[in-house]
């Protein structure tokens, strides 16, 4: 089971000029609390043929991850047009919103993005040099493509199913004696008493 489900993504400020920052209001539900933060990334696919032209626009950590419903706004700068081939700026490309836990990606939302001039005349006769300030960006919000990947959110629970080791824990009393010791615990003090 996935501990995290996206319940909704609202694209704010859309359509907008190409140079405007992206804003996504992301709502998610959390079914089991997680120890670590979630990492959300926004990736702009510069060219369909070439993965190296992908631009990581933003990467944020979101947490703490407790049971419940949450939302936040992910804001990211617009892609750097100098890193996109001229001929790829205008036209349809893809924007990817991904979420990972402990470096394991478990969900990926893909949006088609259409970039075009807002001016009728420019659309008819595009200038040879792209006028980036005049480009309008439109994210096709009604057709997100969602892909989920199975990951284990609670590797320490492996023991429930097999004989997996419990999470790496130092020798201490955390198990039985409750919170006080857990709190004070520092990584350096763990081993070899």
């Amino acid at each position, binding site marked *: 089971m996935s501990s995290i489900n996206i319940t909704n993504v609202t694209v704010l400020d859309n359509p907008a000029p190409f140079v405007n920052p992206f804003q996504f209001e992301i709502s998610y539900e959390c079914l089991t609390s997680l120890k670590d933060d979630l990492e959300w990334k926004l990736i702009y696919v510069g060219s369909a043929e070439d993965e190296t032209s992908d631009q990581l626009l933003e990467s944020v950590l*979101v947490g703490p991850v407790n049971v*419940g419903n949450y939302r936040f706004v992910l804001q990211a700068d617009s892609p750097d047009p100098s890193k996109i081939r001229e001929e790829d700026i205008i036209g349809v490309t893809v924007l990817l919103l991904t979420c990972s836990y402990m470096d394991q990606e478990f969900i990926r939302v893909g949006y088609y993005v259409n970039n075009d001039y807002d001016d009728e005349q420019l659309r008819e006769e595009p200038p040879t040099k792209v006028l980036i300030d005049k480009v309008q960006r439109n994210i096709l919000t009604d057709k997100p493509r969602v892909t989920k990947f199975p990951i284990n959110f609670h590797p320490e629970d492996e023991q429930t199913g097999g004989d997996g*080791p419990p999470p790496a824990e130092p020798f201490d009393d955390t198990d039985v004696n409750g919170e*006080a010791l*857990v709190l004070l615990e520092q*990584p*350096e003090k763990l081993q070899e008493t």
Partner: protein
Amino acid sequence: MIAEKPVWVKHEGLQIFSIDVQPNGERFATGGGDHKVRIWNMKSVDTDLQNLDPKERLLATLRDHFGSVNCVRWAKHGRYVASGSDDQVIQIHERKPGSGTTEFGSGEPPDVENWKAVMTLRGHTADVVDINWSPDDSMLASGSLDNTVHIWNMRSGICTTVLRAHLSLVKGVTWDPIGTFIASQSDDKTVIIWRTSDWSLAHRTVGHWEKSLGSTFFRRLGWSPCGHFITTTHGYQKPRHSAPVLERGEWSAAFDFLGHNAPIIVVKFNHSMFKRTTSSAPETKRAGWSNGTSKSGGKDLQPYNVIAIGSQDRTITVWTTASPRPLFVAKHFFGQSVVDLSWSPDGYSLFACSLDGTVAMIHFNPTELGVRLTDNELEELKKNRYGDVRGRQANLVESPAQLLLETVSTKLSGSKRAASDVQQNQVITKPSVNVENTAKKRKSQVDDRNKGAEATGDTLNKASTSNRVSNPVNQKVYRRPDGRKRIIPEAVGVPQQENNIAVNGQSHNFLPAPSAAPGNRDSGDTPVETSNRDSSMKEIMGRNPDLKERPRITARATITESLVIEKVPGTSGNDGILNVEQSVGIKGSSSTDLLIRVFDWKEGETTAPVCLEACPKEHALDTVGAVSTSMIKETEISCKRSGETLWSDRIMGRVTVLAGNPNFWAVGCEDGSLQVYTKCGRRAMPTMMMGSAATFIDSDDSWKLLLVTRKGSIYVWDLFNRKCILHDSLASLVSSDTKLSSTVAGTIKVISVKLSKSGSPLVVLATRHAFLFDTSLMCWLRVADDCFPSSNFSSSWNLGSAPCGELAGLQVDVRKYMARKPGWNRITDDGMQTRAHLESQLASSLALESPSEYRQCLLAYVRFLAREADESRLREVCESFLGPPTGMAEAATSDTNLSWDPYVLGVKKHKLLRNDILPAMASNRKVQRLLNEFMDLLSEYENTEPADAIPKGSAPTIDCGGVPSSLDQMDSDPPAVTATTPLTIDNEKQVSLGNSAALETGIVCEETGSEDQEKHDQNSRDQGS
């Protein structure tokens, strides 16, 4: 009889593998080839309510599986629905309060009801094909293509037992309604009856399955509600396919249901028995076997079973055990095989699903099936035959202590999550002004934008934007010390208090940088990155973990991949002489510089690392009249700190290895010489001659130097005392390896040789097998290997996950290496391998002196033994942790041979026994006698233990109410592990109260301690609702 095919029940047109009706009759669930479980409204198939709003038909779609859903089964209480899938896991779903959601992006309308996965059962290593709940819902049995049946404890979600006796895919499991047995059917053409009391094999039946041909998706067998019959599937009796029936007790095939033209896939008994109302019912001659009860008494009033059979021939037959002919044959309902059947709770409706992706419902009436026995009548009937069955359904608890420990046990497994919750509760945050500011700024920014957007009057977005203005997202954004942006999201639809907790939580991790602990991962990494300019230095990055683990001073040596140590058998006339050969990997160190960096933490983190660099220099020497060499190879050694040269030296020949720490430097050359320098570059000793080139070198934090030569000699010196600690050879590894690998005889590839954290040489071969030299045994121990490919345990090391211990690191290496090899095939474990693996892990972690891993392994091992109810091993483990009998302890200490060390890796064995081993044992009640025995013994020990173990601060008290005071003390205790733990104190205080009381105190203490945490859990639950 009315039959219908609701076309709206579908899984995107794909197969429907399973169907099950909720025991209260309100819903039914289907599982399909689209990886989804769907929950449907029963009202929509009710003949009277055909006009129900179509939107109310599908109540929920559960998308938690990543493979075809092969089986869905409701618990008897109807609260949970379990589903088993090709993705090897079983999901337990429950209806949560609130309205349903939809999956974002699916384009489907939101669910009517809010069903969520609440538990995931992991453990099978292949597709889960059939599952069934125990009569009392306390357990779940699952059959899988990994040839096993797993038994799961449904309170904890822990797999308590793995039944391994089938030789092929298990495709059906069923519970005895009396609770004494379960039966499983497999592609090995047998049915096995297992006892639920100890999970032993009661009977392996070979029967009419032997001649069966072809393969089937399922072999879903069924147990009659009276408990007397098991109807199995996929039998064959020339010329017809059959459903052989086994009788209880004999477990032999009594008779067959005959007539299907293709293999039988599924049989399903009606939940209840039936009886005839009138003697005028169409009664043919009774078969002698009717249902195993006495044949006297009112013939026609004799209750009988009703069974439905589904087959690959696309037909369904319904039979009663009172008649030798089918009551009903349903043909032409489906285009493909029938794969699952389910009876409605009233017993008069039959649900069927097919691989053609459709379902059918057949409604009967009492004149066709007879009159259903009431539940009481059925209970009475069972009671008459089997006695009171209630006591048999579970392994009864024999002592209250068992229950208490079980609670601890479940808490242990849940403790990790709880702990983090607790952390969040406890921390009093000082949200730095920065954070607040950024958040505010950000909010206003967002608002501005919204206004802007509104101003443009964009119709497309207006609705959502205005909506947002009235309800802006209340999130907090700030940068962590490492520069990463972190957002604390706004909790939606939860009490404000919870929100506060969310804000407080974990922020202690992200307090401003100066307070970050030294050795912080980020500050540690930074200098390293700059050092990556040297092409041959890839290893540096890879060895980062070392940096963290050696707290003060770190040395790094260049380790080159794929050095070949070659054993040359007898070429030079000397048997067993080892040669180290450098393969292409190193590409001639003549062209590449060698460089190492040493970080001296003593001098503060600001100090730039000291680099030792070896640059080959070649001088053309024109020797007058010389015939031979025209080139002399020299190497310049220079020691630098941030560009400034501290010292330099020049050595003849090519340098192969460098090592250093703040105490000394060591330089090994191709010609077999080794030069040791002091910190400031003085030649501390004359050149040491090793006989062959040094290939691996490592040093620890102080004065230990490890060297491996090309001929396979290994040395460890203590340079401070100028003493050789160890001189041995890798020869034993060579010979052991040649058997395993297909490489040229006498050759081993070594990846790394270094000093383990415990200071013993650790060698990793190219096979990723790791060997540790035990200086007391004077021999090599293999601490990591691939001998247990199918062990369940090994599958749980997660690759590339968060920082793990030394042993785990080695293990992961082995697995990564194995994973690269093609042709990996799925081997199923018979439990032997897992055990052996755990045992060797345990010993290895002990050898590596890695306490945390030792404890992990110990826990896993004890859990495993408990699950397998391996009493003799458990006893041995417990005894080894308990020590010699009390009273003899003093005598024993005088006897040096038998002296028992009460500590293992610095931790008190009794503590491990009490806090870890015994609670872990409590997970299986089968070993509770053993558990009780050791609890008694342990408390005896503690009573006799010297009182001086109690710290002065704690005044002994007899009163149980004294616990809070000791809690206070616990809070103030440093986290460092000491010989005496607060819990120990409590137990020792309770001397006069006896064992069970002492134990209770321990538990009480624990529970008091976690009160906040429970509150928090409560909160989260509230929040969830």
